[in-house]
């Protein structure tokens, strides 16, 4: 579109229509699942399920949240996400700072080691054997440590640190500060947006992680929400303590969809922040070079 050109009305309307259609295709399934999770027994049985629940009820949520496997799994996922994000950020930030410093003997070699992992990844078999060798099988460490650092996030963080003027670091050094103090006292306060963005990316990835839990955990007491979601929704297993307190359980379908919603809500909660940092170009900056 050239500035002096008038937009073609027909063209733009077709485009807008297509866009709205795409938006509906993306959003509708989410709305439908939410609607089902709030629907009552009668509507589920008769198939009266639309974008909105006809007779909204909290039955499924009340039943799920009174305790049992789902609550426990949500707790585990929350713990792993918080602890894992902290660990991931710690390793990423320290290493990114180290790699952002120039003229460090061996620094280029370490950078090269990191870059190579973008192209060559170890197979799940040998990685599993290493994780087992470290004694992490059937511990929550397996969900936190083996996939703690994303080389991509590390590189983005490094690019960000490199954009901070070197004079700040040099003058702090003249004042006698060492690199740990500089990272903590100068670099990190200047990098809040990048930290938030990368932290959120890590948090969402850890919350969603399924594969690690599948291969490293056998003990069902440690299952995070993704694995429990698969058990209940895709494999149709009923919660082990389904009939606690002699209550009549709400229909399977609404309970299943309520589990889906509970697993999705944390992502939806952070999504606006993620989106904000994303459009700010914190991450795309490195793409544009």
């Amino acid at each position: 579109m050239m500035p002096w050109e008038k937009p073609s009305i027909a063209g733009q309307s077709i485009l807008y229509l297509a866009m709205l259609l795409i938006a509906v295709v993306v959003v509708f399934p989410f709305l439908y699942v939410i609607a089902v999770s709030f629907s009552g027994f009668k509507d589920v049985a008769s198939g009266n399920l639309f974008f909105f629940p006809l007779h909204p009820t909290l039955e499924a949520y009340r039943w799920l949240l009174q305790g049992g496997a789902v609550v426990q799994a949500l707790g585990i996922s929350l713990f792993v996400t918080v602890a894992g994000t902290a660990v991931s950020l710690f390793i990423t930030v320290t290493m990114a700072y180290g790699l952002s410093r120039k003229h460090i003997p061996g620094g280029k070699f370490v950078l090269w080691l990191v870059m190579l992992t973008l192209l060559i990844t170890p197979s799940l078999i040998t990685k599993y054997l290493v994780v087992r060798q470290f004694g992490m099988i059937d511990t929550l460490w397996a969900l936190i440590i083996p996939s703690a650092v994303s080389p991509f996030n590390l590189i983005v963080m490094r690019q960000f640190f490199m954009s901070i003027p070197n004079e700040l670091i040099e003058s702090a050094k003249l004042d006698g500060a060492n690199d740990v103090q500089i990272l903590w006292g100068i670099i990190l306060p200047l990098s809040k947006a990048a930290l938030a963005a990368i932290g959120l990316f890590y948090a969402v990835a850890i919350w969603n992680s399924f594969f690690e839990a599948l291969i490293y955990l056998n003990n069902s007491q440690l299952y995070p929400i993704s694995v429990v979601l698969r058990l209940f929704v895709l494999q149709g297993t009923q919660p082990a303590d389904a009939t606690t307190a002699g209550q009549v359980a709400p229909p399977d379908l609404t309970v299943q969809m309520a589990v889906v919603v509970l697993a999705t809500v944390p992502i939806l909660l952070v999504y606006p922040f993620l989106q904000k940092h994303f459009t700010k170009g914190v991450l795309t900056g490195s793409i544009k070079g």
Partner: protein
Amino acid sequence: MIEKLTGRASTKSAEALSTMASVTGERTNKGSASAAASKKPGSRPTLWRSMVRERWVYLLLLPGLLYFLAFYYLPLLGNFIAFQDYSPYLGFFRSPWVGLSNFAQIFTAPDFATVLENTLIISLLQILFAFPVGIVLSLMLNALISERFKRFMQSIVYLPHFMGWVIIISIWQQVFGGDGFLNHLIIGMGGHPINIMSNPDFFKPLVVLQVIWKETGWSTVIFLAAISGLDSSQYEAAAMDGAGRWRRLWHVTLPGIRSIIILLLILRIGNILSTGFEQIFLQRDAVGLRAADVIDTFVYDRGIVNGSWSFSAAVALLKTVIGALLIFTANKAAKKFGEEGLYS
């Protein structure tokens, strides 16, 4: 590629690409810097002194370095079990060496042909259908006049990318499954219900559609960045010469992002034997192995489930080697046609 084992098919290539771009950019700078450094005589004492001076930097590098050594390079080194008959009781060093027999076994394994076929079909369908959709959507988003509406659309189409596959498939199950929205609709209109999610014939197109639904929005990130980096004077010049919107799209925009498209395609071709694990694994039970088993799930079954460590490591190693060869070949072919390629 950057297989974070989370099966994020299209981002993977976008991520690798951007990083590649930054590495190649740096390489030229570094080359001249090291050339200048090597001229200085008596570098040994200075080297030691500067290492001592930078000890805090080494301290900061340490956790990350240990991480990469432990969880990338140790497993890579561990690939030697592909040439052993590895047994956990004997350990890495005492298991017997068997040469290439694990690799020979791959080709005689009865179901491997099916696995390879499924993998290749799914990958090719994705390259043919899922890959171009991202380009089209980027062009459409770019053609929107209202910046606000464009941002609104972006925030909608990026959303599914941030949901894990378990969530995505649960949702699809609810829309297209036996007891899902589609069937309620069909029954409501007096038709016969169909179950798309458990029909082996639908499996491959379904997998591609899911990837399109989940990742197309996210894949526009890199194309939009490339489009926004194009020189606006080229558009003006084309418009002066009387080129309309479509001609400008064809002669300015598409050639402008061609090198990015080709880079992503090279990476995608290198990934042709990876279909993403989670998406397939989660739906495999519903349609059966015949239609849905791919190399990644095959390796999981044979290794983690059955304990044929060496055999599955051999399959995975072969997959990596073929992937590297494919990237190398695709890059060479791109260069032959006068493209920049992935590396020089």
